[in-house]
């Protein structure tokens, strides 16, 4: 019996065991990426607060060439463990691959700060510096773009709020010019927990979106990170499928923006 068979049997006997980690890792190393992803994803869903599980998901996604999804998974890792070396290295690699050298440098610099003895991280940092002709620049990185402003030609159509109902970005204005952003933010406090509780109790997995259709407007609610909620709305003559695509994009941009802020 090989390692994979033995680990698979163990996991089948006790689906709550942590054996999914070595099983997925072994599958990944043998190039069975789809099977590895299934195992790792199930494990991460079962243990959503385990940074190591999400790191494994991210590495498999990266191997599969799914950069955006790997980015999401590593961002989750950093939320759970801000000093996770593998996540900083992984994000540095992804950023470099996507041509975002400034961001790549920042992740790799953080990786080297966390583990000065890590030769691979130091080498990667040097290579990126050489490639872009950059020098280390100390200082606090400032986000330059409010993701919702960047995406919304129609101001007042989206808000990003934190778990406690405080506005992070965006805004909603009435035709009189009144800003409803704070009121909407307060109304959204707890939505994420409520949706999470509902989907968990009903065995629906982690919640990904709430769509609300009305006579006049359609609303999309997302959770770019577990501690934030994004609300986007459009008049209902805009097809709901198109609103979903817009919200997908806003969610992705919000996640990147939040990651930069942090």
């Amino acid at each position, binding site marked *: 019996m090989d390692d994979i068979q033995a680990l698979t049997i163990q996991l089948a006997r006790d689906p709550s065991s942590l054996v999914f980690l070595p099983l997925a890792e072994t599958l990944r190393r043998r190039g069975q990426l789809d099977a590895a992803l299934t195992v790792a994803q199930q494990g991460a869903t079962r243990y959503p607060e385990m940074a190591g599980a999400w790191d494994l998901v991210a590495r498999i996604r990266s191997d599969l060439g799914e950069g955006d999804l790997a980015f999401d998974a590593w961002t989750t890792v950093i939320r759970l463990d801000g000093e996770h070396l593998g996540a900083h290295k992984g994000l540095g690699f992804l950023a470099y691959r996507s041509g975002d050298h400034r961001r790549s440098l920042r992740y790799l610099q953080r990786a080297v700060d966390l583990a000065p003895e890590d030769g691979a991280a130091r080498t990667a940092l040097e290579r990126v510096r050489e490639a872009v002709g950059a020098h280390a620049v100390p200082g606090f990185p400032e986000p330059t773009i409010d993701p919702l402003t960047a995406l919304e030609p129609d101001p007042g159509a989206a808000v990003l709020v934190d778990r406690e109902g405080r506005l992070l970005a965006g805004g909603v204005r009435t035709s009189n010019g009144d800003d409803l952003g704070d009121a909407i933010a307060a109304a959204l406090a707890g*939505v994420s927990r409520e949706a999470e509780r*509902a989907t968990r109790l*009903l065995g*629906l997995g982690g*919640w990904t979106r*709430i*769509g*609300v*259709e009305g006579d006049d407007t359609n609303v999309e609610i997302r959770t770019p990170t577990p501690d934030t909620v994004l*609300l986007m709305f459009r008049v209902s003559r805009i097809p709901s499928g198109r609103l979903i695509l817009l919200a997908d994009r806003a969610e992705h941009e919000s996640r990147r923006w939040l990651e930069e802020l942090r």
Partner: protein
Amino acid sequence: MTLSAVLDDLTREPGVRGALVVSVADGLVVADALMEDVDGGAVAALTSSLLRRMRGVAQLLGQAAPQLVHLVGGEGSLLAAPAGEELLVVAVARPEVNVGAVRLALRRAAERVR
């Protein structure tokens, strides 16, 4: 048409695991047609709470009450449509469900319950 008949029709949609009618004000089950693994009490309480919250958001936006709420999870989803002010028709669906078809069936069911 009885509530049970309306719900039975709704659960005939492929991918629908169960359906129920819920009282919005107190989150209690009025009628249900559910598979064994679906906790009707939990569905009712959570859906009515979510709908009340969405009504609050709609009100702030100066809009009418929502006609459909769709909560999507990685392994399935929940769709709810109000049937008047007091009641809500809810469907619990598998991930592979045809959302468009269930939306229509749910709205039809809500019209019948109203």
